[in-house]
């Protein structure tokens, strides 16, 4: 793993994007790593575009500003592809993980991704509806991100999802989210 991984999340208010960034940070604590998770705070409105960030590093994290040149861009809502520039500040080898029903090749073309940039897609909203009956795509996105980045093992991530969701939700919702995380991991496709 690289010494420092910087992740930018794009979602809409109410999709659990900030929670996803938090769970990822917690899961990445293992092995003595340093982590950050923070949203960009504006007026909190359901449906409004929002960003959240992660930094995961072997060294102490001192930088306290938004991620400007992400290694990974995670798009929790595909409609954002048409309204904002999700590739802003991307590097020549930035990895994109996008929640969409579309084929990864089609999305790759739409983004105009460079030869070294990787584009992955996963139908996280459908997985979420299948697994726990709500269009809350954060847990399958976490599973997909886990597979694509290799930052943590799936078992480890599942354990953390169990821990984080366990504080707030009923067993049925937790089980659904665990299944959704696993399916996100398994169903993410490269374009």
């Amino acid at each position, binding site marked *: 793993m690289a010494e420092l991984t910087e992740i930018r999340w794009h979602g809409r208010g109410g999709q659990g994007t900030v929670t996803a*960034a*938090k769970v990822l*940070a*917690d899961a990445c*604590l293992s092995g*003595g*790593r*340093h*982590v*950050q*998770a*923070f*949203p960009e*705070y504006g007026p909190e409105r359901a449906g409004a575009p929002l960003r959240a960030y992660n930094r995961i590093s072997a060294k102490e*994290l*001192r*930088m*306290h*500003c*938004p991620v*400007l040149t992400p290694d990974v861009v995670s798009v929790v809502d595909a409609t954002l592809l048409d309204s904002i520039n999700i590739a802003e500040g991307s590097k020549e080898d930035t990895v994109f993980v996008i929640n969409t029903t579309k084929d990864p090749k089609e999305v790759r073309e739409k983004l105009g991704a460079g030869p070294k940039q990787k584009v992955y897609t996963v139908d996280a909203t459908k997985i979420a509806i299948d697994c726990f009956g709500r269009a809350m795509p954060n847990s399958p996105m976490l599973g997909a991100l886990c597979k694509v980045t290799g930052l943590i093992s799936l078992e480890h991530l599942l354990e953390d999802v169990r821990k984080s969701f366990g504080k707030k939700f009923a067993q049925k919702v937790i089980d659904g989210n665990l299944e959704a995380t696993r399916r996100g991991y398994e169903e993410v496709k490269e374009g």
Partner: protein
Amino acid sequence: MSKVVAVTGNEAVANALRQVNPDVCGIYPITPQTDMMQRYASFISDGKVDTEAVLVESEHSSMSACIGASAAGGRVVTATSSQGLALMWEMLHIASGDRLPIIMPVVNRALSAPLNIHGDHSDAMGARDTGWIQIWSENGQEAYDNTIQAFRIGEHMDIRLPVMVCMDGFIISHSIERLEYLEDAEVKNFVGEFKNLYPLLDLDKPKSYGPLILADLYHEYKRAQHEVMLKVKDIVLEVAKDFEKMSGRKYGLFESYMLDDADIALVILNSAAGTSKDVIDDFRARGIKAGLLKPRLFRPFPYEEVADALRNTKAVCVMDRADSFGGYGPLFMEISSALYQLQKRPALINKIYGLGGRDYLPSHAELVLNELNEIARGGNVGLVKEYIAVKE
């Protein structure tokens, strides 16, 4: 044995307060502090602490309740931000004038108008002259550690003064970072039992707080406040030494980063210091001797020590996340006063950055360090005070 966690700054400080388990807590919400006191209120209702919560109708009342509880003889805390701190203003003077060791985390936020909820230092800088000790924190770990140390400093029998522990709103209060918690027993043992000094509830020995003192002795009373402030530095260092023994984490009056042989230096508070350190590493890698000084104890201000640390630099920029409109930035005024006493001193400039939560980016630090480098190599100082990262 410490425990590694990924938590927000607010969560970390709430946990520090839980570990101390004070007698009384004044609670009134204000963004971005709300989440800290909300967590503390949960500790109270879950029976994790036996603190008495005083739910009030304003911050003015919160500080008033804290003053009463502290004078009565309790260990007392509250927390606030921005307008809340501003509304407390007259009571802040009473807490310090009555020598009440109230501990108050301040989650730094901009002041209205215009309304803004984001991080800047205008609130705490406005409370500079209230007679409170002020300790500033770069990140969640420092906010947690400083909160624990604040009890030992404020409650020290030679000091007995209220303490503000400052951290950046949202940037730290709402960001999750890795940090290390101490064991509950370690913290309890470190802060020790609260010791009373002239408690009002000692009915056998009645006493008065805040009586009328006119021109006969008011002047002497205020000199006593000045003199006790002079003792604070030593206590801060003594407490830091004990804290290091327990935690392994070292604290001083300020942090010097790459400063020993530095030609150019930034002086900068709180979270932006972290971002600046990464940029300073880049400048060092290019052979430019850059360094940084991050004040920790802002009141009382360690003038001699700061002057000594900056003595051999050629050019220094003081970065302020607050402004004294029509004057220089508040931190600049301190550094300027500190350096004036030196025979030979560096060129000094002042940049105002990050007001109302405007991001402080590595490129901003680069810009300033490049300007300092020019000045250090014989260039002229242009504008002494300037706003950076301004949209024109």
